[in-house]
């Protein structure tokens, strides 16, 4: 398509007569759009919503935990807090003290064992290992 023809077509588009139908369609569209805009807009804090919210809060307050009377102190069921740590730990039979005492006791193995026995045991071990 050459440029002249294109320009001619564009000019023709520009000279297109606007029919009365177009004005009518535009008017109708305008009225519809404005009617949509004029619809009552729901407000977030409308009186009805505020009233409903207040009612819900009031019901929750009455039926909720704040409406229950505070429990009376019952000495029969009261159990004092007890430490899980044994009080014996601080006594003379405490764990570490028992350990210290046990460490000071003569050890049976240390007394019975001597160098010859250990050497014999080692020789036996070597023999067994050799046969394996």
């Amino acid at each position, binding site marked *: *398509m050459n*440029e002249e023809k294109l320009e001619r077509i*564009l000019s023709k*588009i520009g000279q297109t007569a*606007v029919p009365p139908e177009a004005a009518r369609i535009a008017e109708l569209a305008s009225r519809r759009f404005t009617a949509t805009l004029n619809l009552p807009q729901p407000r977030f804090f409308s009186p009805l919503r505020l009233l409903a919210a207040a009612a819900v809060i009031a019901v929750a307050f009455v039926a909720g935990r704040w409406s229950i009377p505070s429990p009376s102190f019952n000495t029969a069921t009261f159990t004092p807090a007890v430490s899980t740590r044994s009080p014996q730990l601080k006594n003379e039979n405490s764990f570490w003290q028992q350990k210290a005492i046990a460490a000071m006791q003569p050890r049976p193995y240390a007394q019975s064992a001597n160098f010859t026995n250990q050497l014999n045991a080692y020789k036996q071990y070597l023999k067994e290992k050799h046969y394996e």
Partner: protein
Amino acid sequence: MRYAKRLELFEKLKDNYAGYLTSTLWKLTGNSDLFAEAIQYAYLAIWINLEKLTGPQAGAYIYRIALSANSKVWRSRAGKDNRMPFTKPAASEPVDEETLNMVRNEIANLPEQQSMAVVMRYIDQNDYRTIAQKLNCAEDTARSHVSKAIAALREKLAYSNISES
């Protein structure tokens, strides 16, 4: 801006620009269905961009709104390959109605500045000085936009089956 004031401003703008929008959109769509859709898009865009339309650049924004409404309707009608399912013109219609629709479709697919420039030049018959003022650019730039738009339209329409006659 409060809703009532927005509504009042919208009515005022609509009264001011309804004639222009009707004329331009009818010329660009050439079809009552497309025109009805485009005018709705245009009113919606006016409502959304109400604040921008009170400034000194209101005229340019109205152009932009009209052209983007036009592009939207043509795009919504175009197929996947961006080609309109044109029908053969009826015997009573002018012979080259299909050609006009093809050109309208291609105008809608042009870049925004070029589309605005070509519409101002050929549809609204404005001179380059006016176009430059409305596009907020130099006169030579406006000429450049128009010539680029014409070149792009020629290139796009070269592949269509428009006869050279």
